[in-house]
């Protein structure tokens, strides 16, 4: 069976979280495999093998994308943002902070994917309704929370970003 022949190694340039990497990858790698096993960016998770759970969600030029079924070459020349790139050096992103405040992460395994979907939503919609949040997250399966506290986190983060205040302060008010 020819599919088991020795893999081809391809040298590619990837822009991930603002860093430009020149790397050699087997040409059959997905973006997720490249992030996790070549670049060591293990924040993006693998849950279902094939695009059914959303744990591997990253942003590709700002759009939520399933990295587990994306051939790595499709990320060439585009901006990849992973959960590791969501925070600023001076602190967590409002979504990350808000999720911590509302208890929206339990086991935390779906969390990176959920937050990338949520970040993309807030980039285009600064005050989403509950229904809009549900729709934006409808490709990210969470098995722990029943989603409620995740919605609360997105709402809190949206408000914090609108009011340019830390989520904790918004929560107190």
């Amino acid at each position, binding site marked *: 069976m020819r599919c*088991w022949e020795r*893999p081809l190694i391809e040298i590619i340039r990837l822009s991930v979280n603002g860093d430009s990497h020149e790397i050699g990858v087997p040409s059959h790698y997905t973006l997720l495999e490249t992030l*996790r*096993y070549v670049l*060591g*960016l*293990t*924040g*993006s*998770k*693998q*849950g*279902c*093998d*094939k695009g*059914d*759970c959303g*744990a591997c969600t990253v942003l590709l030029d700002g759009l939520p994308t399933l990295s587990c079924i994306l051939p790595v070459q499709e990320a060439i020349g585009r901006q990849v943002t*992973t*959960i*590791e790139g*969501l*925070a600023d050096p001076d602190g*967590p992103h409002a*979504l*990350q*902070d808000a*999720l*911590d*405040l*509302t*208890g*929206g*992460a*339990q*086991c*935390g*395994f*779906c*969390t*990176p994917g959920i*937050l990338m979907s949520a970040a993309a939503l807030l980039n285009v919609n600064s005050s989403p309704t509950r229904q809009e*949040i*549900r*729709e934006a*997250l*409808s*490709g*990210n*399966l*969470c*098995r*722990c*929370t*029943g*989603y*409620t*506290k*995740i*919605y609360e986190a997105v709402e809190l983060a949206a408000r914090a970003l609108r009011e340019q205040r830390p989520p904790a302060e918004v929560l107190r008010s």
Partner: protein
Amino acid sequence: MKLEDFRQKQAEKAASQEELRRALESEFQIIGRRLRRTDGLAKATGRAVYTDDISLPGMLHGKILRSPHPHARIVSIDVSAALELEGVHAIITGSDMPVPYGIIPWTRDEYPLCVDKVRHVGDGVAAVAAVDEESAERAIGLIDVEYEVLPYHLDPEAALEDPDTPIHEPRRPGENGNVSKHVHLEFGEVDRLLAESDVIVEGEYYFEGTTHTPIEPHCAIAHFDPGGKLTVWSATQVPHYLHRELARVLDIDVAKVRVVQPPVGGAFGGKSEPFDLEFCVAKLAMITGRPVKILYTREEVFYAHRGRHPMLMRYKTGASKDGRIEAVDARTILDGGGYSSFGLVTTYYSGQLITAPYQMQSYRFDSTRVYTNKPCCGPKRGHGSVQPRFAIEVQLDKIAESLQMDPIELRRRNLLGTDTRTVNEFRVISNGFPQCLEAVERASSWRDKYRKLPYGRGVGVAGSCYISGTNYPIYPNEMPQSAVQLQVDRSGRVAVFCGASEIGQGSDSMLAYIVSEELGVPIDYVRIQSADTDLTPVDLGAYSSRVTFMCGNACIDAARKIKRQVRDAVAEAWGCRPQHVALAGGWAFDRSDTERKLPISEAFNLAEAKFGALGSMGSYNTPKDIHGDYRGGTIGSSPAYSFTAHVAEVSVDPETGFVEVGKIWIAHDCGRALNPILVEGQMEGSAYMGFAEAIMEAHVFKDSGLHNAPSLLDYKIPTSLDTPELESLIIESLDPEGPYGAKEAGEGPLHPSIPAIANAIYDAVGVRMDRLPFTPPRVWAALRERGRLEAAGQLTPWKERSAISQLTAVGD
């Protein structure tokens, strides 16, 4: 920075005078507050390192070859071609580890890799370690296994009647090898009370199997060092039991085995016993001298299973005309799958755990667990009792219906009460169930809705109870169930060492809250080291909702030992009585004069100077006189029970059969809520999971024995758009034996979801859904059948159902 500057910084961070004065007035500083988790930000920023995120130098990757047959004898295995493949380092088969294992010491009936027979599609047969996953995958394709295919059983009743096709050899000659466990217990005079009952309801219920579906697939890594020490990192929720089983099966000194549990990406009971991959990585690491990792594919997670047992439940319930439950007679068949797992316990739980929150005058159950040629069933959130809870709560709804009584009222007439014993002699102390019922009744506007909503919409109620840990460990011993070690640094930092497993439920955070509460240190001064058998004292694991109760008590025990020393030392320095010294808000201060205070680190330093290095051990063990002394009376007994009530509101589309669960009100008595956010998270997650089982999940198989749908596309778990609105109502009936009065919250709140939804569907459209799940085709078929009977005049059209005014008034 000089030490004084550090102190200055700490003092600035510590509580103000005003805060200290307030602290004196309130019972708790930390407990009961809505606080962050200790691991929340690490998880939200992608920094939490799960098992598959670990990569060790020189690490090999393993794959397990699995059986394509549901039942077959292994005639021969030829690994020669696979061994020759470039990149392959080692291959093992059943004969490399021919030691049976099993989580319950009395029912060890499986092998790390099958030795003689395979018992389900997906049973492990051989394992390969190779330079990468692709090579390992290729190698298992080259292993040649000759099977002698055997007849197989997928249906437990058929297996029961066919002892000539034994899935396991009978334990004693003449016994049926397909019976995994049989339990028959009777309390009170069931037959007499049934005969005397005014109303008898009989029902047959079927609970389809479901599986845990954590988003993280199982993963394990082993490292074997030249000194003979084995380290296994695994996504497990029972590191202690894994530690023991690894040593036993691999025949190595248990002191030379270390199990480390990284953060676990969801478990729900699905990672609560050893699995083939843990033994395989260990053995392969021992053979190759290289670290070895195995990560399950999603499909393999379905084969590992250990999920909820399918149960066929035949119930007969008798009640008096004023609604008193006179007798419950239950016969249950449990479909166990290929092995025992926790099945002995499950079989007991299927009967033992439904005797609260209602008083039963008499009770009998007969439960038989049967082997079938399917992946093994085991404990899933609400182990063994979610299924019978569905049956009993729907039975109660039917009784209420036949008595024309409001179902909440019926439940009120059978309240168990506090400081009492159940019909099967379990001791119950705290019991907030009446408050739970009241809370959901009020929040849901029940009285305005029940039997009053328009056709197609309805509400349903159900209640339940659950254990806060099992009273006995899985292997008999007299040692504590949980232990915590504290170690205090001169900086004020407190390290907590504990074997408990953080699986997302928040056990690490719980430990930090307790230490912060007891020793007055800020939460971020507390470091948690959990679930590393080299470093942490034993906790038995994250199962049966035991961690907050048992580990929490152990932690309080440890913290108070240090607290005593600190207060003594400070009191000596100040010349006052130790009782006057309080620890809170980063200070040690004088209760009678809050101006007199020391930064907590200085207080610790005084104690260290007086007593030597500061550290302590705490532990917890269960009381032993809280159950009946009949055989099996210990199983299902717990030091404390949680209670739950749900009201579900649904709308049913009569044309399609789609059930939309609009909202679930969840009232849960968790004793003291140590952190309400975490408690709500467990309540919402539980109700979600119950809802999922009610409406869509089905862990089923094709006639060939192949799994019907081993993927997250075809095994349906709810998306955000499917999940109902969930409202948590915390009820706190403080338990005298719980840590600060706390009880469990992780599993109990799941139970009533399913019957509450079933009862709501009945209220909406008048069909009884006695088989799970309530998928559109089934609801549609039931509606069609009802329509046929209505058209024939055999049933009154449900659209003309009686209003609540005709029922027994609430509160009569």
